[in-house]
């Protein structure tokens, strides 16, 4: 058994884009008969390798389309790698786009319950935790109301709260540290600090280099799906800024 919490070895991810037109059976059948292949294979990630240990914070930086989100999905088990190996030694709490997966018709409470159970908690466990989560997110008064009545900031707060109230070994954070007002931002950074200190391995995606500088212990720089640089925060950010 390895001591690394996350181990990514020579990972490639290829995916197929269907040509815009072949979205119906009819067209697929016609192109099959004519022998036209409308599928285009794209490499989202090429030969990525890194490890993350307990208490480490890996920040992934790079331009849009560099493959950051795809890499997070590989670690969250949502996508399988085309080749190479992804090993995660522990449970994962994903925070990919806060509030994604919430149902606007259900109340805040019902969403918390459903999402928590979706992440692998028992129903009873979640029920006892709902009050605390709502209180922390400052949504105690709204928790019985349907989610469609919430503001964007409120939904994001709820999403942040449910993911961080989760006891897990790996925390995945995608571009979300800018949610809510200044007070909530402060609160969420504090919470992140606690989780990292508590031994969670964290993977962070952010365009905000200041956030990266203050939180990350190491940085992975991606460009067009390729690993440009992996190393200490200062070192990689320095090179990234010069590029």
């Amino acid at each position, binding site marked *: 058994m390895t001591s690394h919490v996350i181990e990514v070895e020579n990972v490639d991810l290829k995916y197929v884009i*269907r040509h815009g037109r072949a*979205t119906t*059976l009819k067209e697929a059948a016609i192109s099959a008969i004519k022998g036209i292949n409308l599928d285009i294979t794209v490499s989202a990630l090429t030969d990525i390798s890194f490890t993350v240990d307990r208490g480490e914070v890996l920040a992934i930086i790079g331009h849009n389309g560099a493959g950051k989100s795809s890499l997070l999905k590989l670690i*969250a088990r*949502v996508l399988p790698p085309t080749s190479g*190996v992804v*090993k995660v030694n522990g449970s*994962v709490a994903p925070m990919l786009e806060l509030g994604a*997966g919430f149902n606007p018709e259900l109340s805040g409470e019902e969403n918390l319950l459903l999402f928590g159970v979706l992440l692998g908690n028992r129903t009873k466990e979640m029920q006892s935790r709902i009050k605390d989560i709502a209180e922390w997110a400052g949504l105690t008064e709204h928790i019985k109301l349907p989610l469609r009545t919430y503001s964007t900031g409120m939904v994001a707060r709820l999403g942040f709260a449910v993911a961080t109230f989760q006891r897990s070994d790996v925390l995945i954070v995608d571009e979300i540290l800018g949610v809510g007002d200044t007070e909530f931002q402060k609160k969420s950074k504090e919470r992140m600090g606690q989780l990292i200190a508590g031994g969670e391995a964290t993977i962070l995606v952010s365009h905000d280099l200041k956030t990266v500088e203050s939180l990350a212990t190491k940085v992975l720089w991606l460009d067009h799906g390729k690993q440009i640089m992996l190393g200490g925060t200062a070192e990689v950010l320095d090179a990234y800024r010069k590029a």
Partner: protein
Amino acid sequence: MPNIYDSSARTNYFKELTTNLWDQRDLITLLVKRDLAVRYKRSVLGLLWTLINPLLTSLVLWMVFVQIFRAKLADGSQFAPYVLAGVLLMTFFNQAFMQATESIASGMGILQKVYVRPHVFAFASAISNSVNFILGLFALLVVTFLVDEGISLLAPLTVLVIFCMLGLTIGLSLMTSILFIRFDDSKNIVAIVLQLLFYLTPVFYPKDILSAPIRFIVSINPLSSYLDIFRFVFADTGKATLFDWVYMFSSSTIVLVLGLVIFKRAWAKSVVMM
């Protein structure tokens, strides 16, 4: 929950799936409850509606066939419970199949963010429809007594029909969900096939009135066997042959296994494609 993930590990798919479904029992329960709550909370009559809806349907069908077409069943049994049994079972099949299929297609948003086996959604949808079917049985009970017929001592064996129907609908929905995700027009085609299947099942006609070639087509439709067995065990109307029993169990098992295998191969490609 086993918390070690190794993308290169070779695991036994079926074993892993069974463990996963058991691990996710809370999620399935929650999804079923939500499904039922949405269905019954939003209607004024609530739970009563499950009773009234099939009663009214069978009343309409009874008027059309018995009063207008003067239909009679050869063995002298009553038309109303005969047709209601058919309607209930076909509704169960249609809704479990369609909702399970759509649950996966519409769950893509969540499935691309959080690691959950998509099967969980299909199981939950099918199970919640089996609950509806069971509630509908009370309506069938009422109609059966109204026409002075009794129910059979074998009625509890209806459970077997329900289990087989779950296997059949879940297996089918796993295959179809891949089509739904990839091709926009597949819904229309599936709708037509379902309609054809409805008319090729002896829901409101007895099999004896059919000509030999049509009767053959109807009898190779697995749903005919499910329906024959359901009518036989519930109220001892209709005949269920050994062939029907074998056909019901084997079609359910084969379709479920096939669905799981096909889904496994196609899912990885579909989820990457989006």
